[in-house]
């Protein structure tokens, strides 16, 4: 797909990165994104987390020039507006609610998207990677939501694009489908693929991303490397009062809840704290990465 000029142009800019500078998106009077500055270096897997309406999907769509925006957005050094086809040639995209022409079969959909990327149609191997080989001849309109999402994952792999934009990649998927996505994301790290995924929560995905960006009300509220978040991770220990003697200094007693003693214990001294509790019944609550992120940017 890419000619010599395109390759040279990419060399001049940062290679295979996602870059947003001062991106603001407004629909009428509603401002969805407010001056977003974000760079995802080549090979990094970043997760955008945030509540519903935070602007995650709009951010994804901005990178595909599907949303009207001010500021600049580029993929692999290509401006998504002035050089859209070249930018999108680098991207495999899975939208929040994927859909394809309902009259075509799963195999025909893959063949269509292969041809749109200048590749010869050969749908079966890709359908096998997502476990849809038995549904190859089924019209899309007869597939379940999870199967359509698997089909979208197959389409996102066409042409082995260096960048993946995945909007809620595990929603609608069964356990096997979720495992498939996690395996792909893990492999993406080894392959040096750049990934930007959007999700409500990182449950299960924390282990396969390198960086977390918290989006709230259209603004980046916090961002951190996952390794830094794990380094400062703590757990909440709920047990019976009173506070024990010999609790590590780093542990903190939190306000009691329902008569229970609540302790906040850094990961590093958890074993010491449990020993100090001398066999008391206890329950451990692990915070989500988002909670750690909200506590402070590193």
């Amino acid at each position, binding site marked *: *797909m890419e000619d010599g000029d395109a390759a040279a142009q990419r060399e001049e800019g940062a290679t295979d990165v996602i870059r947003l500078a001062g991106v603001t998106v407004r*629909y009428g009077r509603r401002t969805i994104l407010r001056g977003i500055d974000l760079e995802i270096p080549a090979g990094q897997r970043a997760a955008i987390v945030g509540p519903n309406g935070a602007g995650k999907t709009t951010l994804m*769509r901005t990178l*595909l020039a*599907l*949303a*009207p925006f001010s500021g600049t957005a580029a993929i692999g050094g290509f401006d998504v507006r002035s050089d*859209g*086809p*070249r930018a*999108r*040639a680098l*991207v495999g*995209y899975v*939208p929040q*609610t*994927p*859909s*394809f*022409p*309902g*009259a*075509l079969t799963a195999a*025909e959909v893959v063949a*269509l*998207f292969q*041809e*749109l*990327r*200048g590749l010869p149609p050969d749908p079966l191997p890709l359908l096998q990677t997502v476990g849809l080989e038995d549904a190859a001849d089924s019209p899309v309109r007869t597939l379940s939501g999870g199967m359509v999402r698997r089909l*979208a994952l197959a*389409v996102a792999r066409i042409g082995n694009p260096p960048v993946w934009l995945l909007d809620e990649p595990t929603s609608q998927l069964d356990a096997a489908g979720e495992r498939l996505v996690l395996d792909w994301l893990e492999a993406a790290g080894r392959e040096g693929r750049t990934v930007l995924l959007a999700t409500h929560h990182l449950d299960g995905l924390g282990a396969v991303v390198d960086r977390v960006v918290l989006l709230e009300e259209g603004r980046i509220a916090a961002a951190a490397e996952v390794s830094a978040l794990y380094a400062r991770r703590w757990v909440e220990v709920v047990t019976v009062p009173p506070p024990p003697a010999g609790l590590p200094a780093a542990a903190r007693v939190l306000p009691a809840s329902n008569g229970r003693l609540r302790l906040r214990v850094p990961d590093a001294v958890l074993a010491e704290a449990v020993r100090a509790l001398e066999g008391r019944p206890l329950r451990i609550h692990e915070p989500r990465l988002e909670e750690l992120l909200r506590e402070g940017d590193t």
Partner: protein
Amino acid sequence: MNTVRVLARWDTRAVLRDRWFVSAAAAFGALTLAAAALALASPPIAGLSSFDRITATLIHLTMLFAPLLGLTAGAGWIAGERETGALVMLLSQPLQRAELFAGKYLGVARALLAAMLVGFGTAGVLLAARVGTDRLPAFLWLVVLAVVLALASLSLGFLLSAAAPNRSRALGAALLAWLILVIVSDLGILGTALLLRLPAPVGLVLAARSPVSAFRMAAILRVSGTAELLGPVGLYAAERLGTTGLLAALCAVLVLWATGAYYAGRMRFERVVET
């Protein structure tokens, strides 16, 4: 250009699997054949030959069906994919919006032309078998004009579809446009001309504003070879432009409708925001 070809090929396949389109196309084919058979079986009326009766029937059928098929097929196509989200998947690919619009138009146009040609083809075979091939050129002219009318209607359908948020709204607008083009426009022009005693030039301009009127006038002119059946407006126009000149002008109106609506739709599609 390859992108346009790829999209057109897959869209033709998808349109030909669309139940509504296939039903409407089959109805057109069946009615065309039935009308041709009935016209041939009935006794001569007012000195009209079998060929005249068949073509008159086909002209009226085309005036109803070509805009209906073109408008509804075009209107539902982009808006339907926008509604389901399939359009976003296509727009995330390395292509320009103009290419996507062109590919989809070409894809639906090919299916539409196939439907029209099957309908006219069966009538043509019947006509050739029963009446002979002497007036085949006039019949082929009618087919060409019908195809251009269908393409003009398809362009209008795509214009309505370009920014419509969903299929039902686009189809609603298409049916309204069909009513206006086929019924209100002709009657309105006739009524206005009679009521206000409009001069012939104004009547001509008003008549040529609708692709359906332009088709009707061009088809009658070409098939009958005279402007007499077009009334005072047609006579005036033929006197000023000559029969050939009038035919050329009416063909130009049809082509302008097809291309103008297509480019207006494309411009609209390029500006629309996918929410």
